[in-house]
């Protein structure tokens, strides 16, 4: 048994404490220690993007990020995207355009899309595709997901 150390993380604007092992990834800590299960484990190798969270506003694979390295960072997960139930534009746009199918990639997609719009308020379809290229979806063919991000950018929602 590896010794655990207590770390305090800033997640979705609140301080959360967890006892973690040095090799625990942020994904494991979120899902298993903090009951934040919206981040999904699709491959655990940093390829599928289902575990994407924001660290200091940047989209990051939580399955490749060690929890111990995140203590000074602001972490945003899907659970933090709609504080007090107020959906953000990108969430509403996903519903409106039918970009949600099985939902397993959706959390990661939403966070990657959110980061995309934060860095580029008026993206083109190609900009959106580049921003989401690290997030796999097997259901949608991506069209409605890209449309949703464009809709949110247009402020049409």
């Amino acid at each position: 048994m590896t010794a655990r150390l207590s770390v305090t993380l800033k997640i979705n604007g609140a301080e959360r404490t967890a006892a973690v092992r040095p090799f625990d990834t942020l994904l494991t800590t979120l899902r298993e220690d903090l009951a934040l299960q919206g981040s999904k484990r699709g491959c655990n190798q940093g390829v599928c993007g289902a575990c994407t969270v924001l660290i200091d506003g940047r989209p990051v694979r939580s399955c490749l990020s060690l929890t111990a390295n995140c203590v000074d960072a602001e972490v945003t997960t899907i659970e933090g995207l709609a504080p007090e139930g107020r959906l953000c534009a990108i969430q509403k746009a996903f519903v409106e355009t039918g970009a949600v199918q099985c939902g397993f990639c959706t959390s990661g997609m939403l966070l990657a899309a959110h980061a995309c719009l934060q860095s580029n308020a008026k993206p083109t379809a190609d900009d959106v595709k580049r921003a989401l290229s690290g997030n796999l979806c097997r259901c949608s063919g991506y069209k409605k997901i890209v449309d949703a991000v464009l809709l949110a950018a247009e402020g049409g929602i």
Partner: protein
Amino acid sequence: MSAAIATAVGASLPRLESLEKITGRAQYIADLNRPGQLHAAITQATVAHARIKGYDTREAKAVPGVVAVLTGDDFPDGRMGAFIKDEPPIAKGKVRYFGEPVACVAAIDEETARRAARLVRVDYEELTALLTPEAALEEGAPAIHENLASYFKVWPAVCGGNVASETELSEGDIAQGFAEADVIVEGVFETSAQAHVAIEPCGALAEVDASGRVTLWSANQSVFRVQANVCESLLLPMSKLRSLTPRVGGGFGNKMEAHVQPMVVMLAIKTGRPVKMILNREEDFEIVRARHPFKIRMRTGAKTDGTLVAREAEVLLDCGAYGDDSPGVLGYSLLMSRGPYRIPHVRAYGRLVYTNKLRFGAFRGFGNPQVSFAGESQIDEIAAMLGLDPLDMRVKNMTQPGDRWFCGGELASIGLAECIEKARAASGWDQRASLTASPGKRRGMGVAIGAHISGLLGTGAIVRVLEDGSIVLNTGAVDIGQGSDTVLVQMCAEALKVPVEQVSLASPDTDGSPYNWGTTASRVTYTTGRAVVAAALEVEKQLKIHASEMLECDVGDLELRPGGKIGVVGVPGKEVPFLHISLRAHWRSGGPIVGHNTWVFNKPTLDPKRAAARGLPFPQIGVYSFVCTIADVEVDEASGKADVREAWSAVDVGRAINPGSVEGQMEGAFVQGMGFALTEAMVWDGPRLANPTLMDYKVPTTLDAPHGIHTIIVEAAEPEGPFGAKGVGEVGINPVAAAIANGVTAATGVRLRALPMTPERLLDAMLEAE
């Protein structure tokens, strides 16, 4: 029409469960936990074909935190299988593929379980590994299933040796057909194993109550098939196992039959504690199932005016180690090998051969994308030989109203002509000569058409009116992400003329839901939808009987009114709401209102007067959806890389209950088909899968998929379909590889007969052609 009706059938309503999915609250199997739960892991075989002489589990059992280590010796002698009961719950006595689970471990956490699983030692007596169908067919090859002859089979199987199934279908006289042909094309086509890659890996969670009854949650496409598979393989009475489902993160066929559920249930029984197992991505690639690699020898003959007269298809399927859905895939691929054409002389023959690879099984399209790739490539080849436009060639020969499907199936609705016409117009097909390629690239447009059948096997629905007049619909159909929950609720709401919000859906549960074979074969909208409409009609009848007594009038004078009321025809205001009727039914007279319906598709696949069949797996199959897909393709001259710039898919779905979801199915099917066509292939290095990771197995990303995927919905109403609907889940993928291949040929002059059309293959072919 009231607003309530306008928002039900035909409206692109967002998924009912959208909110939980966009806020991260949707629970999938990996998100479920039970108090005192153990975590499980598997030990995988390190040989492809061997007798198991013994196990040494001492070291694994000694790991602190390990609660149980089970091997094949700890499992009963049951066997499961959708067509052939040939598959044990875990390797037992024999290993049949590299990576097959040979032992499983339950421990206090996943890490401990995985560590212990690596310490299980197995003593093998190796046998010759048969890694291709050809090797398995060789004289003297060892039998992969020595007891195949004695296994129970659910259809009139033709099998023996390593041949798991042999099927032959024919119409007309194939020799005469080719004798009448002026031109004949012949070729051998090969397709690769495609992995489903649902973004959610497979997993299960089981617990046993004090009486020994099992509750099992798992990622699945049918709680009922899970129940059947676990109980068959573990020799449990089906009533002793309750199968449930959380949300499912994509299916495409891989979650239809069993994956880890039997092992997880056995661990829960042996330990007396809840046990959970979630596969990692590599395991999901290595042990679940995949699309069959096909070898197809196809011949097609036509008259000089382009009239098709004969087609012959001979297919060889790699079954992998266990039968699973494979005999169905073989038979279905042959049934679809004529394509949606009038061809008087057809022969389709195929063999399914056991090999020492993971089982192949159901995957969206079910053998149809493979044969469509061959068949639709040949239509283009003939058109080119005769100097005909490929689309004109298809229009000339396509199936027409009044025709029968190959072997005699009745076609009650055919929207194919409209699909072709609309895709042709939308894509600018007739102006394609004026398209210009990007610098350094060649560009061309390709077309393919296709069909798919929806309707198989048993289904049901229960509609209940609660005390307050709200409705609960229970069908047992698992929504695997495609949107059936929403579509079924829309149909129920429409049938009862209530707002969608007034209808809730019960989660599939083998204890409480009516039987539903599964979310597979494009069947839920059509088959379960029919049951929903019939059950709602039963509710309407019961409501009217109450209302006739309450309003003191004849039942025949009553009508369903929007918003959940029964009223007297022609007398506005004389009506009673469901609420009052239901209160009366619950507390005073008649009993609670419950409507139900179950049925099974019962029209024959085969008309013995028209066709002959041997080893046909589906005696009754279903109704026909149609598709025309056009792809605008560019090929890089330097790298050989093919890209789809834009695509058009026109699909006849009978009636789009939720057009947005139909588009979602068509767009997703196109991109999955594009992966099959261009990039996806499971590759074996000897017996071992060489690319079981998403880094090495290439599914399309946003950068690969065209944003311009245009879905055109055609609605040729199916007479007995719910509101005219038929299936949409699979039809879209069938023509994709052929449309892209035909586009590649139009662009480069080169024809590839092997998938995927990788840059390497294309470049080699282009260089050779020069």
